[in-house]
Structure formats: C-alpha cells, structure tokens
C-alpha cells in the first residue's frame, strides 16, 4: 500500500534542546564536518487506497492540525514515499 510521509521540524528560531544535546555528543566524537544538529519528526501514513490528491490533501490537513503545532513547529514536507 502507498505511504505518505509528513515531516515536521521545530521552528528555526526556537532552541531545539534535543538537537543541541546530540550536537554536543558529535563534538565529543572529535572532528566531523557538521556544525549543528536539529531533530524533527517523520510520520508515515499508510494510505487505504491510492495516494492521490485527495489523500495528499487529507495528509496536509492532518499535518497542520494534529501532527504539528504551528506555535512551535513547521510542516516541512508532505509527499508520497518512493515505492
């Protein structure tokens, strides 16, 4: 069955303490090419039927109302997963 993936990230201007903690661990590993880490959420919605515009629009609606809180988070993508 097709899957729609929704990705949600904490707003860029907000401190992301979980990402900051992981970035601290990276620094302890020694030299890496990475200066920052931010942690978000990925939702995989199994579609009961085709992943058409109707399903995508339902996923976008849920992404805005349930999966994210617009005060603290941004929905960064809603797309059909590759098979």
């Amino acid at each position, binding site marked *: 069955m097709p899957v729609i993936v929704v990705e949600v990230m904490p707003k860029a201007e*907000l*401190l992301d*303490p*979980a990402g900051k903690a992981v970035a601290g661990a990276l620094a302890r590993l020694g030299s890496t090419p990475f200066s920052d880490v931010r942690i978000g959420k990925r939702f995989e919605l199994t579609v009961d039927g085709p992943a058409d515009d109707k399903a995508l629009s339902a996923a976008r609606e849920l992404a805005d109302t*349930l*999966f994210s*809180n617009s*005060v*603290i988070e941004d929905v960064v993508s809603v797309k059909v997963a590759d098979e």
Partner: protein
Amino acid sequence: MTRIGVITFPGSLDDRDAQRAIRLAGAEPVALWHGNHDLGGVDALVLPGGFSYGDYLRCGAIASLSPIMSEVIDAANDGMPILGICNGFQMLVEAHLLPGGLVRNDHGSFICRDQRLRVENNSTAWTNGFEAGAEITIPLKNGEGGYIADTDTIARLEGEGRVVFRYLEVNPNGSLNDIAGIANERGNVVGLMPHPEHATEEGFGPDTPAAMRNGTDGLTFFTSALNALSVA
C-alpha cells in the same frame, strides 16, 4: 456543596492530589474520565498534571482530542471555571482554549523545585482570593514548561492583564517574559505550569520560613473558584 470535577487521562499523575486539594478547600471533588462525553454536572473543572499518553506527539496534544474535551471546550465557552495544571495547561493550549505553546525547558533538563511566583492578576476565577501582586510559593516540576508565543500574542496577553502568574527569582524553564500562567479573555480558564494542588495542607507543602513543608499558598486557587461560583 460545590462540585469540582477532576478529569483523569491515561497518564495523569496528580488527579488524586487535585481531588484532595478540592476537598481541603471545602468542595466536593468529582472524578471524571477522559473517555466519557460527560462532565457529571460539576460546577468547575481541573485538568491535572501528569504525562498523558506518555507525552507522545506533543505534551497534552493527544489528550486534547479526548472525547470529554468537546464538553470541556463548551463549558469553557459558557464561562465555567477551568484550571489546567502542568500537563493540564499543555492540554488547554493544544485545545486552543489558551494561546501559545509549551516547549522543552531551555536548559534541557527536568526541573523540580519550590517556585516563587507573583500573582499578576487577582481577578480570575482561580486567583480572586489573592491580594494584588501577592508573592506565593508552590512546587514546580516539569520537563517541557517553557512558555512561548509570537510577539503579538505576548503583547496582547501583557496588555490585557492575562499573564496571571510570573516566575520570581528564577526562570526555571526559559518561559518568555517569565510567564508561569495565563488566562483566557474572560478569566474563567487559567493554566499554569507550577502545581498549586501540592501546597494545600501543612506538613505536605513547600518549606516556609516558619516550618518545613508548611506552605499552603495553593489552597487559595481552589477557594477562589468557590468564591467565583458563589458570586456568579
């Protein structure tokens, strides 16, 4: 006797403490269950602290969609006194009964302390028994208690006197403007991160200069609701 409901959600921890506080204030506590579309005819409501649904998704987010929340939202809009404590505050925010949001503490750690607060608004249903500007101490214990909102919302809350409690001495979680609790426009719905229900009986509250665990500043929250209901 005035009846105040306490809603238990899966993962509520402080529901029985809230019931005890209501009893100590002279009202009858009524245990309510999140899965019922029934407020049991109560006069006021407390949404207690805890970790509903293990804080999955976002703190309070899943609980805010519980069956009973449709009745809670109707009651809030009808003017019923409703107090959200900690996880209950997070639910009220997720249910859009109060503005803004609560995020992980800026220092990244859970914090538990006896917290001094200033009562900035003593005209709400849950603070009318305090003197204006009263300074109180009640326990605080949270991991995600940082209050945030956009600049316009913060300005509106400040301008309309809807910041009800402000942290004193220490800002324990990075809340904007040291905001510990807020109210809706009407003042019947109040949410805060610290726990008044844990400061309602001598011997079981925060330390005071007079004696250990002697603080009962939280009791006034619950007696205030009784005042609000008796004059309504």
